[in-house]
């Protein structure tokens, strides 16, 4: 269904953007609005982000991807193809969940275990031994990608391994949400089952603005569903980075 619009469309005026009236908001540490008026006059999400301030580099976000040349609107690289119902245990098995994503070393390590839980029927492995980055920067999947547990380590592991986007037929709810909240990967939806037409190792380009995926190896083009208002959140680097840029929470905490 309309997963792409799930997070940030029709954003009502969040009551905590108004001057404090709720008792629980009176605590000094709670987000304070320096200028509550600005956010009321225009839709929060669709407003263009101020480009003047550089993206705050959060610890959870890798800076560059090894094998993907990414700009704001397109990703180019090799794809890795998986099937339906790839659950979070296959994306990052539970034994590696002791790694805390906010710790830079452990973030990096999470990447090295990305998709390690795939059955041995996947002869070409996503990660080469002793590598922290995958040579595949785009994952192509079937139905219900990311089902199973709520572990945020799943999109984080993919992001840490250098994946810029997943293109699946559909997503499990929590995985989609976590991808947007962390800004780790773009969870894009294809209109057809491209996982049956692409092969691991094909060279692909995603044109985000045009909602298009091009497989250069086969010469085919596919339409994707628009990512909608979740796009700017991922581009900003997650909900916190976005909320700061949009003035929902103060730009400098602490």
């Amino acid at each position, binding site marked *: 269904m309309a997963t792409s619009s799930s997070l940030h469309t029709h954003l009502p005026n969040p009551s905590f953007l108004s001057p404090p009236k709720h008792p629980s908001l009176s605590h000094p*540490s709670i987000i304070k609005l320096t200028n509550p008026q600005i956010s009321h006059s225009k839709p929060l999400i669709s407003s263009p982000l101020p480009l003047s301030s550089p993206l705050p580099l959060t610890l959870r976000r890798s800076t560059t991807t090894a094998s993907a040349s990414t700009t704001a609107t397109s990703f180019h690289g090799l794809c890795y193809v998986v099937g339906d119902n790839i659950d979070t*245990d296959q994306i990052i098995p539970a034994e590696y969940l002791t790694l805390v994503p906010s710790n830079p070393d452990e973030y990096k390590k999470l990447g090295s275990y990305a998709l390690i839980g795939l059955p041995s029927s996947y002869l070409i492995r996503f990660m080469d031994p002793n590598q922290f980055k995958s040579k595949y920067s785009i994952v192509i999947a079937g139905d219900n990608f990311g089902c199973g547990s709520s572990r945020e380590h799943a999109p984080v592991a993919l992001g840490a391994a250098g994946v810029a986007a997943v293109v699946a037929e559909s997503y*499990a709810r929590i995985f989609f949400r976590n991808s947007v909240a962390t800004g780790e990967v773009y969870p894009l939806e294809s209109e057809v089952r491209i996982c049956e037409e692409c092969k691991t190792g094909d060279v692909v380009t995603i044109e985000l603005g045009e909602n298009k995926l091009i497989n250069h190896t086969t010469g085919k083009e596919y339409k994707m569903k628009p990512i909608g208002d979740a796009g700017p959140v991922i581009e900003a680097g997650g909900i916190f980075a976005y909320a700061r840029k949009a003035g929902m929470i103060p730009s400098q905490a602490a």
Partner: protein
Amino acid sequence: MASSATVSSSAFINKVQKDVGLSTFSTQPSFSIQNPKKTVSRKIVSVMAPQQFERKPATTGSVKTAMTMTEKILARASEKPQLSPGENVWVNVDVLMTHDVCGPGSFAIFKTEFGQNAKVWDREKIVVIPDHYIFTADERANRNVDILRDYCIEQNIKYFYDIKDLGDFKVLLGTDSHTCTTGALGQFATGIGLTDAGFVLGTGKLLLKVPPTLRFVMDGEMPNYLLAKDLILQIIGEISMSGATYKAMEFVGTTVESLTMEERMTLCNMVIEAGGKNGVVPADSTTYKYLEDKTSVPYEAVYSDEQARFVSEYRFDVSKLEPLVAKPHSPDNRALARECKDVKIDRVYIGSCIGGKTEDFLAAAKVFLASGKKVKVPTFLVPATQKVWMDVYSLPVPGSGGKTCSQIFEEAGCDTPASPTCGACMGGPRDTYARLNEPQASYYTILYWNTVCVSTTNRNFPGRMGHKEGQIYLASPYTAAASALTGFVTDPREFLQ
């Protein structure tokens, strides 16, 4: 995938596809009651009683649009009179639960984003439970519990290790996909990631999309060889593991009304295995009784309106169902237990949030007691909580002449019940008790690379319980105990009739 062809049950499932497509959601009647009081005149014009017109619900202002339970709960939490599926709203969170796997990350994000000296939004609304990796020598796992403990002390978190005050028909979020279990109490409960949890820690709010609701009507007397696990495996087999993605699942009907609270939790626990956002069971006298000594917080139950819109309605005659399993490697890979009687198994695991409750152990003990035999494969028992663990050692099993579960398990030759934890349900560190490891992993491992396990847990994806090639059959505690006694997947009717 879903082997519905092999399940003879499809004959008595009646899916009522109400003609409510997505378009219906957007065309809700707009009863705009601007100011219902404005024309009231204070002048007395008559001493007669005013004529009573039939009062339509819409004119009273009390009922505007028919809503489902889930919609009502979210409407209250977002301080709105009404909501429709698909709307995105900021909800006030009543309880945030986190544990040792996601807690340290959530607190770290909270600190990074809200400042080192920030305080959580409400120290009494956060529940922290180390339960996933706690009986392990794994250094990082132990470090994470330490980090969590430090945060809880620093933030003066009231409910560290303690989950007694749950349940007052509100909004509960947790960094665990099985948070949906507590929808059994009639509240909205769903799993979130740790970045979202970090946001909630600071603000007490989260943006949520209102899910449309699927309704499951289960009627008929439940046969004595069935448990709620069979019901939910039946449902997931029917709608597939993405059949409820982004949707609420509401369980009603005479069978559901007859279920105990723990059995209702079993139903709601596996909502996520169908992709569901949340599961709910309407509150009734069973709910009130359960909460009696567990909460002093006042609450008010909400129910779906008669005219509420459901995406679709499924009806089951429970009296005709048979014991089920979910075969490897998917929770919707449904089959009758008796159809799998030739599947040789290597072990049985009874435990986890869905299958390690007091009643689950009582159920297993009942089968062992009825058979009077010994198990033929290693049988691991991992209580879900400290309370369950104590019950296993203290509660008399009905009809046993006063024996406890633990005594019956010992006589049947099971492993000694382990300390409570999430255990091997999700694999975990390599030294986790009862984890499916590779043969060379440690000397006490009695497993082959293709170990077959009958388990009362909720997931059987590749690698879920440890080794990727492990074969997990999900089943009820009855079926698991019966299988332990024969060494094959076994229909519990062999022992219970």
